[in-house]
């Protein structure tokens, strides 16, 4: 085992005072009500492993993988234990020592064949029938093959895949007369394959602000679903391809359209690259100019020529935006800036929606249980739409709302902004 990893474990373990505060925030724990699934229990399991009291059992692996990586425990821990880091390292260690679980391996080797995937998806109509089984009411599909992040479960519905991926529709550079700024757009998989309309909205909003948008064709999945399940090796491969695709661009900022992508660019690329990797300085440098789209918009002088949108809306905090990047106020401010909008806060807006990257892939039942609470909070508000800043959350909440018979659409915050600009004829 690497010394670095051992040190991380030992330091964090020494800090855990076993106070049990994490029990009050961990949604997985609250769903299963079993101490071995809460951060405190998992910390003890890591400790037991380090002290040779337990082997790398399937049971241990199960505890480590049944975690949303939502950072709720990390954020609430009074001792500042970096639980997320401890578990991530353990997942990686397990993958190294024991190999990845089968389902995950299937999803992730797929990723390396990105081009084939793109190609197939471009023939969506044909391909869809092959990969997805339509639901009787045609409202959604059940995937027969896994797709990144969306996961693979016979019961979960996912929206109809885009006919064409976002990046195949966007030119490498969206030119602007006399641009005020130039930014690079990191789309993330979900915007690319599932919700290209969010991506187009994002580009439109930047355009409305006289910002030139570069969308590098060679960008890849951010790697989050891969390295969080322990496969640092494939993860590193993707990280490096992304860094290479962005490092020579002449841009003022890198803007991420999804919460996980933002955390990845800001923090996780650096976390998973090895200490002596020559790309590490590049990751550091680019991290400094990486922003989530809502954060970026709150930092510029925003074109506030907004058109009226008469809607009641509420907002769900994605874990990777709120706890991952400390961004919760910015999207709310953007939403409230639009005339006509009635914003109602849902209860526990910052609770995880239960998606958790590939979590819902393996633990659909628990994930649904957690999501039901989210659906309940939304139901109490009765909004016209739910807004959020992460497409994975969007998909999981849409799934939940649909299964509960609630007909409320979920949208990326940026789509509301685009709609408002459109009403005013700005774009």
């Amino acid at each position, binding site marked *: 085992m690497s010394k670095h990893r051992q040190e991380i474990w030992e330091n964090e373990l*020494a*800090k*855990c*005072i*076993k*106070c*049990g*505060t994490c*029990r*009050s925030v961990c949604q997985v724990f609250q769903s299963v*009500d*079993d*101490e*071995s699934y809460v951060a405190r*229990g998992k910390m*003890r*399991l890591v400790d*037991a492993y380090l002290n040779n*009291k*337990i082997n790398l*059992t399937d*049971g*241990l692996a*199960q*505890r480590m993988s049944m975690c949303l990586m939502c950072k709720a425990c990390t954020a609430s*821990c*009074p*001792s*500042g234990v970096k639980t997320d880091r401890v578990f991530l390292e353990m997942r990686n260690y397990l993958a190294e020592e024991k190999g990845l679980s089968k389902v995950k391996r299937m999803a992730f080797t797929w990723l390396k064949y990105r081009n084939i995937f793109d190609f197939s998806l471009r023939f969506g109509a044909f391909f869809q029938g092959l990969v997805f089984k339509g639901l009787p009411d045609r409202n959604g599909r059940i995937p027969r093959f896994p797709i990144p992040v969306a996961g693979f479960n016979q019961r979960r519905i996912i929206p109809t895949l885009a006919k064409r991926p976002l990046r195949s529709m966007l030119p490498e550079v969206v030119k602007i007369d006399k641009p005020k700024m130039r930014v690079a757009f990191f789309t993330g998989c979900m915007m690319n394959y599932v919700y290209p309309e969010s991506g187009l909205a994002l580009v439109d909003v930047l355009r409305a602000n006289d910002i030139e948008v570069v969308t590098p064709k060679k960008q890849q999945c951010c790697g989050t679903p891969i390295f969080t399940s322990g496969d640092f090796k494939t993860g590193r491969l993707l990280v490096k391809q992304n860094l290479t695709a962005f490092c020579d661009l002449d841009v003022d900022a890198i803007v991420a359209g999804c919460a996980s992508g933002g955390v990845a660019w800001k923090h996780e690329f650096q976390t998973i690259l090895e200490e002596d990797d020559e790309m590490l300085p590049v990751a550091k440098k680019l991290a400094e100019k990486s922003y989530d789209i809502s954060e970026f918009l709150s930092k510029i002088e925003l074109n506030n020529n907004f058109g009226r949108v008469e809607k009641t809306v509420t907002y769900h905090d994605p874990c990777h935006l709120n706890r991952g990047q400390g961004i919760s106020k910015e999207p709310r401010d953007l939403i409230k800036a639009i005339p006509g909008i009635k914003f109602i806060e849902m209860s526990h807006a910052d609770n995880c929606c239960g998606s958790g990257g590939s979590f819902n892939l393996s633990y659909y039942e628990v994930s649904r249980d957690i999501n039901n609470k989210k659906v309940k909070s939304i139901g109490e508000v009765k909004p016209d739409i739910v807004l959020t800043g992460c497409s994975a959350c969007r998909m999981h909440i849409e799934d939940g709302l649909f299964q509960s018979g609630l007909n409320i659409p979920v949208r990326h915050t940026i789509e509301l902004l685009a709609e408002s600009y459109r009403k005013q004829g700005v774009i």
Partner: protein
Amino acid sequence: MLDLKILRELEETLGRGRVKTDMESLISYSYDGTFQERLPDAVVKAHDVSEVSNIMKISGAYGVPVVPRGAGTGLSGGVVPLKGGIVLEMTAFNKIIEINMRNKYAIVEPGVYTNDFAEAVEKVGLFYPPDPASSKSSTLGGNVAECAGGPRGVKYGVTKDYVMGLELVLPDGEILNVGNMVDGETGWFDLPLLLTGSEGTLGIITKIIFRLIDNPEHKQTLLAKYDQVIDAGKTVSSIIKNGVIPTTLEIMDRTTIQAVENFLKIGLDTEKDAFLLLEVDGSKYEVAKQLEQVKQICLECGAVEVETASTKEESDRLWKARRSISGACGKINPTKIGEDATVPRSKIPEMIVRLREIAKKYQLKMVIFGHAGDGNLHPNILTDKRNSEEMERVEKAVSELFNAAVSLGGTLSGEHGIGYMKAPFLKMEMGETGYQTLKKVKEVFDPKGVLNPGKMFMDEEMF
């Protein structure tokens, strides 16, 4: 290892897969908020009273220890299964059965989380005062079993002041109901009172009847700052002597203030030697009057600055500081040996002097904070359990600290209970007669010594 026969019998009563013996589960139920860990032989979660009763019958028949467990946030080691056996998890008893607004009582199951209950009560306009700092994660069963207290104790008392009745399963599996929902008054021995604070050594609590009270109309928070911690101690004695009863009266010494500020960064004045955090409640008129009186006393006793929180946000900020202490200390040194030895309020200044001397003598980092209004000072030693040389000094310091408390007429445990941590000192506090009396009570309830052995009593042969 438990005999396979016993495990099979347990599984037969509970159902397949309900008796966990995998290493992952055993490790996860081997601890609480203290530092010792001991593996149980099995972990089971009961869903209703009859299951608890059946488990106790089996345990009784074979003499297998049973340790009831709430959330495992205890600070005296109550749920650490010192002698192995079965950890009986009570968190599935999670229903608030009734909140009676007219007669102001509630019937709840022991696995309900304290804060959830307090919120539900508040929703209907009533008040359940006990508020341990752990309220978001501790269970009501654990609160009753430890007789938990909290900042509001000065005015509103502790958990025992709200327990009117209990349903418990005795070690032989029989079900006992004590108290009532009329007034909790019993013509006979006050068993609810005896069982509150029994730390899972006399019976398994399966239902609780709590007294509720009216919500106070107004509240106001005040912060007094001192250059000398002794002056803060004097203020406490003086406030009580003058007949003012604040809702809460909390003390934080310099090291505590610094730790919290480091952790929260909310602009606390880290130059001061001590803070007193006070809250008064009542009608608008009463609040204003008390506040003025308290302010006066603080200044007379040497406070250099007195601040009143004018907005809810401001008072929330101050209380957040108080609630974060425990964790903030963890940032200084990883191991926190917390004690809750308590002294009469008039002895607070003296106790503070002694505590500081002890810390100095053994060269240890000590923070003092707590419910000063109750004389409960929560001296906490911040150390690192991996440093065995220092741990030896800690042990000596703790022993001296208990001695100091008892010699000032105080008690070992204000609220965290005895558990295994303070068991060695129980005799010192109770005296021989007191100790033997306690033991006889234990024998009446649990003659075979199957319930939570190793806690409170040290005598190896039986408990």
